[in-house]
């Protein structure tokens, strides 16, 4: 890594004073988020044993399509775990239609999770342990707000990751899933505030474009709900 020396200097100056360069962001972004460690590409190899981070937890290696698919698998695991909990014991003021649709969404996310697991086979990361301690599952507002956050994040994640995929087949599959996530997002947003299905800032009103986020940003947000350490390399 050519900027190794530069990186070392930045580390000495500390996080707050270092210029927010891409590589330094990758190194530090995980620091404030429990469970998610973002490791700059190649550093561990170049810098030897002394600074090699312990690779506990799961590792998303973005060097190829499997990394991107595992990233999607991680997000689907998170969503599935959330909806399984909601669908099995929904807030008492959920209507019968809402209960039915949350059952549907639960099975969609389980199917996505199991699909990635099956498609990745031996390349699949392990099961993630989730942390939903901040969610009040008996409170409609808390459940809907979390569902909205997960769905909008999922849409932005797939939108942002699509360009990384080298295989047309995998890109096609990601496309088949993201529009279903967008349907979920629209439905949930309409439950919270009717007519809010595609409003700003999620959908920019000047361009009519949905949000897209790079994996580092998505994982920094999702990481708050994941107990398992998620290592990111070659991003």
């Amino acid at each position, binding site marked *: 890594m050519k900027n190794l020396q530069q990186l070392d200097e930045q580390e000495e100056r500390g996080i707050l004073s270092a210029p927010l360069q*891409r590589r330094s962001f990758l190194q530090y972004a995980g620091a404030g988020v429990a469970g998610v460690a973002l490791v700059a590409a190649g550093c561990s190899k170049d810098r030897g044993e002394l600074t090699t981070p312990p690779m506990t937890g799961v590792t998303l290696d973005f060097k190829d399509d499997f990394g991107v698919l595992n990233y999607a698998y991680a997000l689907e695991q998170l969503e599935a775990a959330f909806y399984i909990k909601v669908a099995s014991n929904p807030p008492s003021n959920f209507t019968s239609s809402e209960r039915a*649709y949350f059952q*549907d969404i*639960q*099975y*969609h*996310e*389980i*199917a*996505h999770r*199991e*699909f990635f697991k*099956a*498609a990745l086979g031996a390349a699949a990361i392990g099961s993630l342990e989730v942390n939903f301690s901040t969610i009040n599952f008996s409170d409609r507002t808390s459940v809907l707000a979390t569902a909205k956050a997960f769905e909008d994040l999922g*849409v932005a994640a*797939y*939108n*942002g990751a*699509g*360009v*990384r*995929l*080298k295989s*047309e*087949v995998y*890109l*096609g*599959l990601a*496309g*088949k*899933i*993201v*529009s*279903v*996530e*967008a*349907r*979920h*997002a*629209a*439905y949930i947003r*309409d439950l919270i505030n*009717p*007519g809010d*299905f*595609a*409003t*700003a*800032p999620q*959908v*920019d*009103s*000047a*361009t*009519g*474009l*949905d*949000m*897209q986020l*790079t994996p580092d940003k998505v994982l920094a947000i999702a990481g708050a709900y994941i107990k398992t350490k998620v290592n990111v390399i070659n991003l």
Partner: protein
Amino acid sequence: MNILNILDEIEKVDGEIYERLNPRRAAMKGFVNMGKKISLAAMPLALGSVFNKAYGQSTPSAITDVLNFALALEYLEFHFYNHALLASPALIFPNVAAKNAITLIRDHEAAHVALLKGALGGSARAEITYSMTDFTAGGTFPLVYDDYVTFLKVALGFEDTGVRAYKGQAGVLKGNAVLTTALQIHSVEARHAAHIRTMLNAAGATGLKPWITLGPGGIGNDTGVSAVNAVYAGEEVTSQANVTITGIATGVTAAAAAECFDEPLAKTQVIAIANLFLKAGFQL
């Protein structure tokens, strides 16, 4: 200004975007400053001209074709909604919320037209005007601008077709920064489709879900409108990449398996649908 964010976002996947846009980074600052000066309405075009410089000359014709195809669909969608809002006195929206939703969707389609037109620059296809369209589809939907439910059903056909059309072209854009923009439009069309399904549900089409489920007899069309079967052809599939989704976990029925993956349409399939709404002489 979110339009400027697009460039930031592209930079994340194409670290050399600023160099492509202009060899001198300083010039980019000029664009940012320009953005502050010119009106919001002019921004998509200004942005488009920048895209054009960045990718225009090296853009393979296949990508231009996809963008022009998307532009044609966006013109159709825009006129469909715009006419409903501005020139259809017989079309009665049941409440302000319904009209606001259609207005938001119309505005998104207008923004997509402007964005694609700007991105294509001189390569943009000829404009499609309202007078070239026929949203009764040759008389199949005679009450499209008189009956609210009929209007919504045709709207849903457009949105679900739009989702499937963009999905079908993703492969052509693979690895190109334009793909990200196309995906960002694609998911907005899916949000529109979900909302129109919710509006239809409220207007009496009970059982219509925000997502596409299996229709009667296991067909892909769950709308109950047989005239739009072509819009949903293939949506009924329940296996993906040789993985059987039905029963992949407890509770994943065939309906859930069909719902949880939206399917693409090939360009020829989309053109056949779009041509139903274009007068002779103006078809794609």
